């Protein structure tokens, strides 16, 4: 379903100034999350908390044994995501299936710093720096907000 929001909606695609292999440019993230431990998970989007200091997405992931774990995926604050072009918080469809790549929390909790989001209609939102190879959902290091111009969806 093409929503009119697609025309105005821009993808947050934040590009680091540095060499592509650096994924976690956000200042405090390395302390909590391990950028060398990037995994991909899929689940049902339960909630979107569009809040300061960090926007977070709650994803219900079903384990192989049937147990459901709620994962918390964090990113920057609403101001920052807005500046990067992801201004429509209502874009995310609760109850639908999302796949994301994330840097795992160092303390082993079901938590991660989200890199790339694949939407139910197979569009990609690149939320962080083109980490070539280390992000399974973004092997080509896509992203492109280096010049401050928002990009549209990338397939």
């Amino acid at each position: 379903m093409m929503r009119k929001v697609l025309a105005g909606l821009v993808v947050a695609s934040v590009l680091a100034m540095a060499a592509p292999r650096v994924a976690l440019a956000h200042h405090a993230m390395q302390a909590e999350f391990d950028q060398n431990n990037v995994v991909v998970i899929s689940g049902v989007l339960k909630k979107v908390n569009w809040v300061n200091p960090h926007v977070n997405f709650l994803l219900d992931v079903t384990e192989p044994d049937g147990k459901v774990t709620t994962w918390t995926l964090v990113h920057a604050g609403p101001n920052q995501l807005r500046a990067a072009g992801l201004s429509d918080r209502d874009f995310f469809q609760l109850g639908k299936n999302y796949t994301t790549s994330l840097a795992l929390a160092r303390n082993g909790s079901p938590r991660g710093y989200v890199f790339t989001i694949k939407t139910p209609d197979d569009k990609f939102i690149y939320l962080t720096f083109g980490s070539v190879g280390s992000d399974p959902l973004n092997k080509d290091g896509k992203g492109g907000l280096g010049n401050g111009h928002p990009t549209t969806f990338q397939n």
Partner: protein
Amino acid sequence: MTVPALDPLIEFIRSTRMSQIFRDEVGWLWPLCESLHFLGLSLLIGAAGFFDLRLLGFMKGVPLRSAKRFVPWAMVGFAVNLLTGLIFFISQPQQYATNLAMWLKVLFLLVAGINAMLFETSYSDRLMALAPDAETPVSAKVIGAVSLAAWFAVLYFGRMLPYLDPNPRSGV
């Protein structure tokens, strides 16, 4: 802000071994430096603030010479913050170099510094000679007010770093 002229500098700083170590190899560095930065600012504002309040005319009866003895402690706080600030900048230069809040913070740091130097070179001796009960002259009040305002402005723009000028390039 986007300041293309700064890109080469930012890239260079990030490419240094020191930057890489701070960023990738010392996980607890950032929280440690942030904690020290907050402690440093409390010491700085407490100690410098005390002297500034005296310059403004509060706590009459306290000799200015005595009040000034707190200023070295403000310098300790400042030194801690300068060091931790440099560590922040070296590890993530792109978060600060083109960030308007950082520029404004530096501006007010300069205001505070120049104000302090002006005091030291042109007014200090005269004021130290004042009787403890005497009213402080207007010049002293101005210097005290500018100092307090400047340090609080530094604090303000520092805390506003992630919010005032969110920049997709900076990742903040």
